[in-house]
């Protein structure tokens, strides 16, 4: 559960980075972003990858968690790029859905862990 969240957060994070780049804006969101929005997207991207790291560490501890995070973000970036090539709109929508559901998954995980403990 929390690892799914980590993957979704990494995916959404990379999607935000992608949207912050001028060359991908039209194909994903349909318009050029204002400079302020670009900065925001970059910050969101960094936040997504950071949150994914936190999830991986929560799930597996510092050692294994950081290895897992490195692997998960590589796969997330590969998945995003492949989806972007064939279905750019779907990629953007999936990223938005990921960003929405990931915190819910984290909350559910926290609740389950709390109840079990």
């Amino acid at each position, binding site marked *: 559960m929390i*690892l799914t969240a980590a993957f979704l957060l990494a995916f959404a994070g*990379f999607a935000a*980075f*992608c949207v912050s*780049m001028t*060359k*991908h804006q039209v194909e994903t969101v349909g318009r050029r972003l204002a400079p302020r929005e670009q900065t925001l997207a970059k910050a969101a991207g960094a936040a997504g990858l950071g949150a994914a790291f936190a999830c991986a560490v929560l799930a*597996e501890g510092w*050692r*294994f968690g950081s*290895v*897992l995070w*490195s*692997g*998960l973000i*590589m*796969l997330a*970036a*590969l998945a*995003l*790029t*492949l989806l*972007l*090539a*064939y279905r750019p709109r779907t990629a953007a929508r999936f990223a938005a859905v990921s960003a929405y559901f990931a915190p819910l998954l984290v909350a559910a995980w926290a609740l389950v862990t709390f109840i079990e403990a």
Partner: protein
Amino acid sequence: MKGSFRQSMAWLHTWSGLVFGWVLFAMFMTGTASYFRPEITRWMEPETGRPASYAQAAQGAVAYLNQTAPDAQSWSITLPDERQATARLFWRPAPSPGEEAPRRRGRSENRAVLDASTGQPVSPRDTRGGEFFYRVHFQMHYLPVLQGRWVAGLCAMFMLVAITSGVVTHKRIFKDFFTFRPRKAAQRSWLDAHNLTAVLALPFHLMITYTGLVTLMGLYMPWGVTANYKAPETYFEAMFPRAEEVERSGVSAPLANLPGVLETASEHWGGGRPWIVNVSNPGDASAVIEVTRHSGDQLAYAGGTLAFNGVTGQLISATPEPGPAVLTHRVMYGLHMGRFADPILRWVYFLCSLAGCAMVATGLVLWTVKRRSQLPDPERPHFGFRLVERLNIGTIAGVPAGMAAMLWANRLLPVGMAGRAEWEVHSFFIAWAGTIAWACARPARRAWVETLSAAAFLVAALPLVSAATTSRNLLGALLSGDWAMVAFDLTLLALGAALAFCALKAGAYRAAPKPRRRSRTVAAPA
């Protein structure tokens, strides 16, 4: 090699990648499969059962050894983990008076394979199992082991050269980070695909290549050891301390309860798993039980050894914690092996490693795609171009076909056949060589489609072959909840589908109008 730094790096990248690319592709493919070494072995030994707890297996092993080799000089038990279905035993018989101590490795009559849950001996068919893919990926085959490791090291070194020079060559790493344009001209999309698989999994590629070299650094760069240790033996003694051999006292005493000892060991390690158990002088008052920790318990690929009194079960000694240099080496070793990985992380490793295979393959193809348009007559390329093109086809389709052929041979060769395990291995190389020969005999575009289709068939039909020849089949595994074997068959189907997709794409590429038109306009005035 003239020109700017970037140009010379591009030259280096192109040629180091090409010359070593075919061997590297085979190393990457077999190395990728090695992440599932225990599962492959289980699949290739259909006579064996299901994984069971190490405590259960240890009990069976002691019972068997007490009966078979009660007065042996020593026993060695490799316990199963949750992915293995057998315990592997060997023992050193007591040397008869006057005879020199026999070598450490026991002969085949001093070995046994026990079912993990029942403790009964099983005799799986003669096969190298997943061990072959693991071994061949760093020491080749048909070569003396050390020479093979040098070949692998040379290839890995040039892989590192290709990665580093590739990073310099690639001007737009961040600008093109998410860029893949499959519908653009061939050269553009192949370059995109190569960049994509290389850049997005770059941390993995760098890690796996560098740590791969580190695993064998003692062989490649022995000078640190030779400068500090007069004799190599003293180095090995310092690195891998072993308990001193004790003479048999002649006073018989029953062996301590092994599962209990293992439990103590596990507690000592904070829940770590025991892996290899060595018992010297079993049944004697001087007995010592050494328990080595599972190498997949931590990032570091060596967990230390505990020695117990073999009669009372008291802990005698533990190997000291390694120093920082040794620990660094072991962590790098561990990162390469990925044995610590839980199923999710193992799949992450596997997929990143597949991306590595794709990186090498797309790089090889890119060499021909780039040069095809510059050929004076694309219908009749020069010898070098034809050679690269044929080796590309023969290797990119041939290695997966060969790996599948080995699994076919595992199911189809008669169980009692002499030299069976070796013939399984031969079938890998025969299929690979056959694919290269086929690629040389056919027009290139047809050869791509035919060899990839053949590889797809060989891989995807394996679950059926297995179901027809043994008791291992998808339905049975599903019904009994043997998820590792379910995943094995499904993975074969998925990989077969991926190869079939490549074959389809290669077939569609043939129909692309652009290269044809160009060849016609060139051919027309002649």
